[in-house]
């Protein structure tokens, strides 16, 4: 008897679909409720920024949990999104939406170029090259100051709006970023269930085997890469209303590392894992007033422990605990 997995093609399709629609409706309701009840700008805008960064973590997981590589250079696309919006609004006078679209297109173009060159590499080689590209990007951003504003960066934007929605209003900012995040999650769920998603999974688990059954590994990896880039760029664009300034530091590999931590904390196998990780990553420092270096020490140790004992992140731990203590509906447990 096949184990029940969400999205399995056989089985109670209509039942699980109703269940999922309920989840989505709950999520929408939660977002609306949170956005309307909390008015403290600190909490609300931080929540909005967390949503934007969670989107970035999702884009990392398209590659990490999707095809199994560590994309250290993902902040490159995040930076393209941020600078695209900043240059579009600041230098070209475009409205925010148009600048975002331009940035997304630009990120896909860059992803195609970079992907064609670097995706033939795997493992550490791929990660190191993608890291190197962010280094080059940072040097370029520092030097080409006519375009990028140099080390000080670009700032002084007109009030940022999406249509009638003022992103400078904290609650609007939160709701916009949260809904975009939700849309991204739904999109990625759909991708995972599609044939392309299955192909990605087979490439992740064993590229040689995948190739031997006819999966075009190179193409799958390129498509995954092209998918992750605009997500990262969108995240970068959405972070601009929060900081109101874009500096070359946006290309710093430390940003990707933060995103990676979020993915690992929440679990790379779960689509919403990165979102959980982003929440924890933001919440824990606020709740515990740790010396920042102690915080880094603690988080790094947690990551090491996770990689040693539970590489699936908290999600795997959660499942394990549930299996041990919780109800066992189905003997094959999954």
């Amino acid at each position, binding site marked *: 008897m096949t184990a029940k997995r969400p999205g399995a093609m056989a089985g109670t399709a209509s039942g699980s679909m109703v269940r999922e629609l309920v989840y989505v409706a709950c999520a929408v309701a939660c977002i609306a409720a949170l956005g309307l009840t909390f008015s*403290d*700008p*600190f*909490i609300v*805008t*931080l929540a909005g*920024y967390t949503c934007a960064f969670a989107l970035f973590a999702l884009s990392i997981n398209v590659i990490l949990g999707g095809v199994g590589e560590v994309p250290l250079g993902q902040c490159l696309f995040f930076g393209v999104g941020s600078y695209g919006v900043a240059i579009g609004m600041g230098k070209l006078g475009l409205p925010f939406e148009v600048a975002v679209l331009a940035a997304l297109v630009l990120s896909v173009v860059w992803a195609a170029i970079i992907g064609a060159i670097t995706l033939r590499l795997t493992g550490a080689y791929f990660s190191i090259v993608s890291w190197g590209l962010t280094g080059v990007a940072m*040097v370029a951003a*520092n*030097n080409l*100051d006519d375009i990028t504003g*140099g*080390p*000080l*960066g670009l*700032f*002084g934007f007109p009030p940022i709006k999406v249509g009638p929605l003022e992103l400078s209003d904290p609650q609007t900012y939160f709701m916009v970023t949260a809904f975009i995040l939700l849309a991204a999650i739904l999109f990625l769920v759909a991708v995972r269930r599609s044939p392309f998603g299955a192909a990605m999974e087979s490439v992740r688990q064993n590229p040689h085997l995948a190739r031997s059954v006819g999966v075009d590994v190179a193409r799958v990896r390129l498509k995954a890469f092209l998918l992750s880039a605009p997500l990262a760029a969108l995240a970068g664009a959405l*972070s601009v209303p*929060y*900081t*109101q*300034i874009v*500096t070359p*530091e946006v290309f710093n590999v430390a940003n990707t590392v933060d995103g990676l931590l979020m993915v690992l904390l929440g679990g790379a196998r779960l689509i919403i894992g990165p979102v959980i990780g982003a929440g924890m990553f933001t919440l824990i420092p606020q709740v515990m007033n740790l*010396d*920042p*270096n102690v915080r880094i020490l603690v988080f790094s140790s947690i990551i090491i422990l996770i990689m040693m004992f539970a590489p699936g992140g908290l999600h795997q731990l959660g499942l394990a605990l549930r299996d041990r203590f919780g109800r066992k509906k189905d003997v094959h447990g999954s």
Partner: protein
Amino acid sequence: MKKSENWSLLLATGALVAATVQIAFAPAAMAADPVRIGLALPLSGAAASYGHDSQRGAGYAADLINQRGGILNGRKLELVFEDEKGTPQGGVAAVQKLMSVGRVKAITGGTNSSVVLAESSVTKGRMLQVNAGAQADAITEQGSPWLFQINNTVSLNSESFNAYIVKTLKPKTVAYMGENSEFNKTVLEKLKESLKAAGIELLSTSTYDADTNDFTSILTKIKASNPDMLYVADAYPARAAQLWKQVRQIGGFKIEVMSPGVVTSGMLKPADGAMNGVYTGEIFMATDPGPEGKEFVDNYQKKFNILPGKGELVIFESINLIAAAMDKAGTDSDYAKISKTIREGTWPSPRGQLKFDEKGRARAPYFYIQRVENGNIVQVERVSSH
């Protein structure tokens, strides 16, 4: 199972209601409520030691004010600190937290100009912000009516310092090397202007990346062009110390100069004597403070056993400015009135009487030209700044 679940739900709701009721009907703030001032400081990251120095200097300023009886009819100052982590998003989060959770009446702090720019977009039109240390002209160029700056901007520092170079040091040729950073660009621009106006030739400019730690190639090339003077612009202690060591190793230059406002003991110590003979400039000198500064330096030294540096000075002045201006204006939240009071008054400080211009920048009467001798900074001349 069901019954206990119901009970916990009921209890939780009850607690929530009780808490809400309590907050809603909290007793009105009493007259002796402290005035909270928020400080967004880099308590982690590369500038962490600067952040901790500022914490100390701010605490010292607040203690002195409270000992004298506080402000606004006996209300004490209370400082709230948040870590801005040296990034713009950290600065935004810190300032927002201070404003909402910290319930502060004014914001100060500030080292990194990009961070302060991000913070200023949050405080604009909402709260008084006094930028203690960040130097980019762009911050005050924004023209925010409730934003003030204590430290000299890069231009102000450069103007005073370059005048000294041109008039007194009088090199015939100059070579520039500096880190590719936010304020060095302005330093270089101002230097080019001053040198051009004086007919001094700028032989070469080398701007290097923040990760550089070997300067031999750059220095070799510069040495080959044989300039009278080497101008170094670098604010990062570890790198600058190393740079000067390597300058010594290739034999040095006739006149050596370092951009004003960056030389600290944290730089001199690892330089291990390599910086002897270098000229620089600063808005303040702890070892030779002048009559107004003497009391500040002596008391600080007595209390903490070290001399105050510029970081402690500017935060000290910021806290004093906020407190004194609020006191004089008679309010802790009418920011238009407080800002007007600041611009119209003169404010005593360890640097003499400060005045603020229409862009909110502090003007002190003097600027100090300094030289490094025997691993310490020594005053060469106290020039009046315009």
